């Protein structure tokens, strides 16, 4: 206990001394630092902050120090998190490398792979994207067709990935590829790392119903990938894929939680757009629906907290399917309620006549519809709960 108290004091002091004041303000979307070869820093403090944190290994606090991490124990990492929140410190670096590839390499990667990739992720030098889904392999992810054929020291890779977020901005892609077309479909898949700086790789952004999006299609044509870039052994990719999907679910589950400083609550918007009486939302029916939603949302957050307390920071299990399912459905409900509050003011697309907040809500309402599709549909999550949590038969 005393050691942890000392760590807290030390951490607090360091953060107060080293976190630039502009990094203690709410982060606009366009100042999020994703790193990568082509990284640009709109705010120079962001770069400074990244470098300082990376130097301590605190962009990835629990990773071993030898791979650029902070080497912190889980309790220490939680203290770091609490102290950062206390000071409103921005996250110095976000990336799929940190959230998804890193944990996989730590568990399945060779020593050479760890040494080659982890420090670059920790310092934000390389930006990764994820190549999982394909047009014909959505919910049936294991039905993927991208082929990797061993030829001497290389695989020759051909295929078509979809929903690769930020593929157009990424440097490398971690991919599921089919290495044995004759094996049962879950058994012929491998996990491969591919440098995207290859003329055989082409990306095309996907426009969503909500407008521009970070999603891309990624076309891979006759790309040669060193055999060394195989992670976890040949035809062993599905094990890794399942692990990663659980991490992804957990990430998406809290999609409605991002609180921006300027965002007004449902109840505040209802009062504005539908009127208030005696300090209450005037429309009793709407008020009841808002309360129902807020109750569900609070119970959901309490459940996330309870799960964290029960797991003590362990890896997400099949119950993560519940969080993915419920969290995304809640978020969709929230936006439907917002639209109901805003009425015709939520029907603008662009141009005059609608406030920025109104147009943001309209776009996010549409974007929220993907929540229950991306990272495994709600239907897939319910299947997982039924099978792996409840033990219902196939």
């Amino acid at each position, binding site marked *: 206990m005393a050691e942890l108290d000392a760590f807290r004091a030390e951490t607090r002091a360091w953060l107060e001394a080293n976190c630039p004041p502009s990094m203690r303000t709410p982060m606009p979307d366009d100042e999020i630092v994703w790193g990568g070869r082509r990284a640009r820093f709109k705010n120079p403090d962001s770069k400074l902050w990244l470098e300082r944190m990376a130097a301590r290994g605190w962009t990835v606090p629990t990773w071993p120090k030898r791979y650029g991490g902070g080497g912190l124990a889980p309790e220490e990492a939680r203290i770091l998190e609490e102290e950062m929140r206390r000071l409103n410190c921005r996250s110095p670096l976000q990336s799929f490398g940190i959230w998804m590839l890193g944990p996989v390499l730590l568990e399945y990667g060779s020593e050479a792979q760890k040494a080659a990739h982890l420090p670059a992720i920790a310092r934000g030098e390389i930006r990764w994207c994820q190549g999982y889904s394909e047009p014909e392999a959505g919910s049936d992810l294991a039905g993927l067709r991208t082929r990797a054929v061993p030829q001497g020291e290389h695989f020759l890779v051909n295929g078509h990935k979809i929903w690769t977020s930020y593929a157009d901005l990424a440097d490398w892609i971690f991919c599921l590829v089919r290495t044995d077309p004759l094996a049962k479909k879950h058994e012929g898949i491998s996990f491969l790392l591919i440098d995207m700086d290859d003329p055989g790789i082409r990306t095309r952004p996907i426009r969503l*119903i909500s407008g521009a999006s970070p999603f891309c299609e990624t076309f891979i044509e006759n790309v040669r990938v060193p055999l060394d870039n195989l992670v976890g052994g040949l035809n062993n990719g599905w094990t890794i894929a399942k692990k990663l999907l659980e991490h992804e679910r957990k990430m998406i589950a809290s999609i409605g939680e991002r609180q921006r400083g300027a965002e007004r609550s449902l109840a505040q918007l209802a009062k504005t757009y539908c009127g208030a009486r005696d300090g209450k939302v005037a429309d009793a029916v709407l008020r009841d629906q808002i309360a129902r939603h807020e109750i569900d949302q609070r119970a959901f957050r309490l459940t996330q907290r309870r799960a964290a307390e029960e797991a003590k920071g362990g890896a997400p299990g099949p119950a993560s399917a519940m969080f993915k399912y419920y969290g995304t459905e809640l978020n969709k409900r929230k936006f439907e309620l917002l639209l109901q509050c805003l009425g015709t003011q939520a029907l603008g697309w662009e141009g*005059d006549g609608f406030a920025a907040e109104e147009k943001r809500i309209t776009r996010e309402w549409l974007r929220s519809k993907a929540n229950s599709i991306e990272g495994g*549909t709600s239907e897939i999550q319910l299947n997982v709960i039924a099978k792996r949590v409840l033990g219902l038969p196939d």
Partner: protein
Amino acid sequence: MALVLDSETALIRDTALDFFEKRAPVSALRKLRDDKDALGFSLPLWRQMAELGWAGFLVPEAYGGADYGCLGLGQVMEAAGRTLAASPLLATALIGASALALAGSEQQKAAHLPALARGERLLALALEEGAHHAPFAIAATARPSGGGFRLDGEKRFVLDGHVADLLIVAARTSGAPGERRGITLFLVPGDARGLTRTRTLMVDSRNAARLSLDGVELGADAVLGPVDGGADALDPVLDRARAGLAAEMLGGAAAAFERTVQYLKDRKQFGVPIGSFQALKHRAAAMFCEIELARSAVLAALSALDAKSSDTGALASLAKAKAGDAFFLISNEGVQMHGGIGMTDEHEIGFFLKRARAAEAAFGDGAFHRDRYASLMGY
């Protein structure tokens, strides 16, 4: 009250289905959107629709119309709804024609209805001032001025408002916002002095405009219907709008449903069509029921309007509420069941989702109509 179409009306429906499928598929709306078309619909297509008589379906024969009635126009609107066709059907053929035919003086009818029926005059109703349908919450004022009136105020969500030749503007001649009494309707030329029109770009790629009335001077002959009694004059017009829009929404829901069921049959995952998964089947079956109920409600409302039945108001609310429920459910389930591809702008199912919300907000959402239904039923 007919719940099954007579053969003549069935023929109209078939003609309309064919017309919109061929000449105004969803891709036409996409093109209007991507071209940032100034009108928001195709005027040549509207002329063709007028030639088929649809513009004048609610115009008495004496003024060059077909006087075919709401059930017939409803079939056309349902067919238009299936392809999300943008056109002046709602603002002009349904609302504009009804307002003039039901509340207009001889002179007003003679002046406008024949041109309207020929597809040569576009109308728009400028009613709403807030974010929610509220026909009595009129703050725009009409004050006596010279022998006529002077109009001041702001209007929102005026469908086709930016291109209408003639606007029907609800303004207050007495009373306070929220009161039924004291509202008067005015015919305002689209190019009136003091009138500013701003088109708003809507999520469903349809038309709407904001109007600013800044001392618009009108003669006494611009009054449509009784002074202070505009709400009474509007009631039957709004019920027609609700039932007609419900028909359009039913069309949208039905088309989105058919597309989704087809996708369930075509799309294979895990080696089988996804429509073989029982959870999706049950949800599809539940949607089918909602479509069937909405269809009955829409047919009942349209028939009641033509029969001038005493419970027209309740049935119009019933139709708008049920069609709204069905369109909401199905457009959402449609996107979800299409999965990732349904989220792309490239696919058409998302257009239905957007239209469902915009149509829901027009002329009263579900909550508005449940409230109204309860009041009409005495509770």
